[in-house]
């Protein structure tokens, strides 16, 4: 059974159909890419899947249940985490606190316990701290845990954003252009990391990317979006040689 299944998803912004008839099916454990030229509607599709926008029509099923109408935080709690194209870290917070916030909805202690530091507070806070540091160690950010997020170099900000998303313990991870702004070397490292986290956390991943070396390198299957609709899908090899894709990307041969 598919982990994520979007059927006939469409959204209209002021008369403009930004995404139309978007059909995607992802099986558990898959690593799928979503590509397309600038302005094709990829991020809009992500926003639909994560509840930031509500679809004008269509269905989204995650883990066998519909997520249409849910708020973004509810969808995250169901098990979909994401990163953003233009990094959205909690910029003024420390690296550690960024990760801690991802544990938020797993925390059980209540308001009164927090205000007076009683009951489960100390135990759970210690647990969170420990888990968060462990996480940062995995992502080689532990030595920077007290650094303010916005002061990290760009590549590390990207890494932190992924770490933060994973800390929410999702089943499905959506990555929105994780390699944007990275140099080839960093992109290479990122590729390895994506493969590794997929295995380590037993994840399903859907990623949007412009950097073809990355997409072609890590994805098992690729969807191509152009003018809001899926125009092709298949393995990296198939996609690379698909004339419709080439045309969408490079333009018509003149």
């Amino acid at each position, binding site marked *: 059974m598919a982990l994520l299944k979007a059927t006939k998803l469409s959204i209209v912004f002021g008369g403009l159909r930004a995404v139309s008839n978007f059909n995607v099916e992802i099986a558990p454990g898959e690593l799928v890419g979503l590509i397309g030229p600038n302005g094709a509607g990829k991020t809009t599709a992500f926003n639909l899947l994560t509840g930031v926008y509500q679809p004008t029509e269509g269905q989204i099923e995650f883990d066998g249940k519909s997520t249409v109408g849910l708020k973004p935080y509810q969808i995250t709690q169901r098990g979909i985490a994401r990163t953003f194209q233009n990094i959205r870290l909690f910029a*003024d*917070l*420390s690296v550690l*606190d960024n990760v801690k916030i991802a544990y938020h909805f797993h925390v059980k202690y209540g308001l009164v316990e927090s205000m007076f530091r009683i009951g489960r507070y100390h135990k759970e806070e210690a647990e969170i701290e420990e888990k968060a540091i462990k996480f940062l160690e995995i992502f080689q950010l532990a030595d920077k845990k*007290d650094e303010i997020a916005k002061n990290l170099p760009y590549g590390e900000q990207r890494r932190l954003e992924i770490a933060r998303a994973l800390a929410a313990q999702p089943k499905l991870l959506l990555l929105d252009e994780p390699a944007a702004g990275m140099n080839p070397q960093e992109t290479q490292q990122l590729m390895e990391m994506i493969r590794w986290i997929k295995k380590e956390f037993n994840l399903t991943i859907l990623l949007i990317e412009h950097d073809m070396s990355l997409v072609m390198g890590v994805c098992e299957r690729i969807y191509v979006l152009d003018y809001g609709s899926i125009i092709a899908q298949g393995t990296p090899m198939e996609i690379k040689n698909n004339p419709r894709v080439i045309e969408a990307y490079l333009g018509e041969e003149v």
Partner: protein
Amino acid sequence: MLKTKFTKLVSIMVSGLMLAGLVAGCGGSGGQQADVIKLGANLEMTGNNATFGQSATNGAKLAIKQINAKGGVLGKQLTLVVADNKSEAAEAANAMQKLVTQDKVVAVIAPIASSSVIAAAQVNADNKVLAISPTASNPKVTVDPNTGKVRDFNFRAAFIDPFQGSVMATFAQKSLKAKTAALYIDNTSDYAKGLGQFFKETFEKNGGTIVANEAYLAKDTDFKATLTKIKSQNPDVVFVPGYYQEVGMIIKQARELGLTVPFLGGDGWDSAKLPEIGSATALNNTFFSNHYSPDDNSAAVKDFVEAYKQEYNQTPDAFAALSYDATMMVIDAMKRANSADPVKIKDELAKTKEYQAVSGLISFNASHDPVKSAVIIEMKDGKQTFKEKVNP
């Protein structure tokens, strides 16, 4: 930022509060200088009532200047320490605290607004320093409503509300033959509300009907909506016990709307600005109660008005006059007590009998309210003219 320890927070508090202690320690030691006697003024220098407070300050300053020119009191010069109460009750208590404990004044010209006097009353009573309000007219200013007892250290120079309110009600019914009246009250002023309440009580007791009971807020400028409503009720008279700035605008706008009936009010009307704001013609057929009449040829009035004009290039209003009177009465009490001891001054002030003030012959009754006759003034072509005199 989430990392910093609570201790560090506390260290801030420590240093802050230590600083407080330090400053307090230094500040508290300043005492009475030998050659001057300090009077305090706890007045509305900023905020909504700044206009009134600054007039009152001028009145008090003039009194002190005159006394000092004549050699001062008890061989010493007087100074006035002004503290701003920002037109707020709580700040009045604060200012009072400062005057009596920091500046060690021997008496205080207390706030304009009744609520501020009441808020500060405990402070000056605890410190045994008298406060005399130029204008606060609510009965609670001198009588504690919880105990029913007179506040030992609180005085006033103005009439109390019941007196003025009932004087005007009687005047409306007897002299103007009014059967119905409308009330139009400044809802932010307890003075105006007090006058309104006692006007209503007396008016209804004597068989009249109040056909409209409306309110405005200080600093309003447009009254036409409510005046239109009042007009539709056809009252014989309209009672507007507010302050001159709004009253002037109210009467002007009422006349424009064709509301021609007499308008009545209290001492808050007394200002040379009233006919300027309201226009002389609009103010015809209006009456208000006051402490004195400028027609009064008494030397006290004339001298005061002249001196004030010379000093400030303005005509004094009621706030200035009453504040001048309050200050002069305190100085007079000081002279009679032959002492600058606050308690002795208080005792003498309570005994004041037939003191010739700008606002008439004043005696204090048992509840520290001035007993003085009121005059009713009619506005004629922008001039205040004497209508009748009402004795208490």
